[in-house]
């Protein structure tokens, strides 16, 4: 493979660091070394800004798209109490999307632009939401495994070096633990219910187990960007470390449910002090990532449809606000 040579044009685009940049970089390095926080007005490397904008907006998109599989069951929830809890949960996810878009905006990209990236397919969201929610038990499996994996991923993000992100994650994590608990309760109720209910619960766990494990991202040796994120104190643990921690956690909890995980290779390795599990189908992961999951098209279509159907409402709100501002000026 030929090494990439720098064209004169590229060279032109390479900014010459100014004195201000050098002072900024020094301050940034110091903050990172001290493990304290970067705030929106602080100088930060372009790569740091870009990485964070991508990560936070992807997270926001995931919250929004993630509403869909569960929202599908709001109208069908089999008891009024469950309906109320599910409604509150899905509504929380919209709130998470809002906090996260606000955090991303502090890095300089407006929410509308981030939203357009989602709608155009340029931006990604978590692949887990491209799997279908087929039965009521899936509400349990999603809460327990998907929100559960999100918590394991997100608790360390509460200490992320970028202030607005860390603070948003603190609020989000508080609610995520309620989400996980309600999922666990749904499964517990089903697992101790009728044979049909118990079977429904086991089937849901079987389907969501592997996709939930893949939420932590590719194996460490396939995840080159992770290293940089860890040096910047955005990421605190590697994908595999988090995944192992999660496997250990659910392996304990699944016993309480009286269900099993669809992987008989799970074991605790006394020597390494780590949980081990069977090989995951990464081929499937990349297929879904590329847009060929069962629900990619459906999820995007639904989001675009809501956005397009709401255009006249947003226009009206903007027009009304403009009229009001004008009146206030005249007065």
């Amino acid at each position: 493979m030929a090494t990439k040579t720098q064209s004169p044009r590229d060279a032109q685009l390479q900014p010459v660091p100014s004195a201000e940049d050098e002072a900024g970089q020094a301050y940034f390095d110091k903050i990172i070394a001290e493990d304290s926080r970067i705030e929106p007005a602080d100088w930060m490397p372009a790569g740091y800004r870009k990485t964070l904008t991508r990560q936070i907006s992807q997270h926001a998109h995931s919250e929004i798209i993630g509403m869909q599989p569960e929202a599908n069951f709001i109208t069908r929830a089999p008891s009024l109490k469950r309906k109320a809890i599910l409604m509150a949960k899905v509504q929380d996810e919209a709130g998470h999307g809002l906090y996260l878009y606000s955090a991303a905006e502090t890095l300089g990209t407006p929410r509308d632009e981030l939203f357009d990236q989602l709608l155009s397919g340029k931006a990604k969201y978590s692949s887990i939401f491209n799997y279908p929610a087929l039965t009521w038990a899936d509400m349990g499996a999603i809460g327990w495994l998907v929100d559960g994996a999100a918590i394991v991923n997100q608790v360390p993000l509460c200490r992320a070096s970028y202030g607005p992100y860390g603070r948003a994650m603190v609020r989000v994590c508080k609610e995520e633990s309620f989400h996980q608990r309600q999922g666990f309760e749904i499964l517990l109720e089903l697992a101790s219910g009728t044979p049909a209910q118990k079977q429904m619960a086991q089937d849901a766990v079987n389907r969501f187990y592997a996709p939930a494990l893949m939420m932590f991202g590719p194996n460490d040796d396939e995840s080159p960007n992770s290293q940089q994120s860890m040096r910047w104190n955005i990421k605190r643990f590697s994908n595999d470390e988090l995944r192992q921690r999660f496997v250990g956690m659910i392996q304990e909890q699944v016993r309480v449910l009286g269900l099993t995980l669809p992987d008989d290779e799970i074991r605790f390795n006394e020597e390494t002090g780590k949980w081990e599990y069977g090989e995951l189908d990464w081929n499937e992961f990349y297929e879904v990532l590329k847009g060929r999951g069962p629900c990619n098209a459906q999820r995007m279509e639904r989001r675009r449809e809501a956005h397009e159907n709401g255009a006249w409402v947003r226009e009206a709100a903007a027009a009304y606000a403009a009229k009001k501002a004008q009146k206030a000026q005249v007065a």
Partner: protein
Amino acid sequence: MSGESATRITPGNALRPEDVAERVAGGVQVGEDVGEYALRLGDDALILAQRLGWWISRAPELEEDVALGNIALDLLGHARSFLTYAGSAWGKTEDDLAYWRGESEFRSCFLVEQPNGDFGKTIARQLVFSIFQHELYSRLVDSADETIAAISAKALKEVDYHRDHAIQWTIRLGDGTEESKRRIQAGLESVWPYVAELFQDDELIERLGGVAAHPSEMRAPFDALMAQVLDEAGLELPDVQPAMTGGRGGKHSEHLGYILAEMQVIAREHPGATW
């Protein structure tokens, strides 16, 4: 007051569905007339919550996913309280009533059964219903039935917000763009045939005396506020005839069957199961 029970729950003290269930479990039981009345209150709230729940993940902006979700959740809370209380008349739970009654056993009004339509129609339905419900609960706070009074006291604070939400949107849409004005006006025209049903007195209301609020007495304040809102929004009061309705007597619009089919399907696949 000496005649008052020591356990009287005064307005301001929240009465959640769980509290009502506890009272019912503790032996509080209502007569069939009060039960029937509580069914009306509960069914209106339940069916509207069911309708609004559809919007979560489909609203025009994220803030509205949250707002409509909030309103749906409040209404579902009212429904659960009223249905739990109603059920005590027949030894039934909220879920027995929500999932195992057929269409003709529901007591909801036509208005709440109306399809969501576009956001304009949903807001028009919200405007009508929240103004009505605000008048209703403002009166039921003084109901001779302590439980109905207590549930209404909590609900009233929430409906105050629902009404404000609907009014603000009506004004924004009415005074926004040409298109939004046309759509909210069309929404109002479309729900208006079902306004009259909300304000009809009947024998049950008469028999209940101080327990119930007289629907007919709420029409004038409803009209007054509605006129004020429409005027500010630059919208016309619809000139539409009332439709023949009969929700309170179990005669429903065509829509209710579909609503129940969706709402009840999973519960009915598993008779006797708990969730």
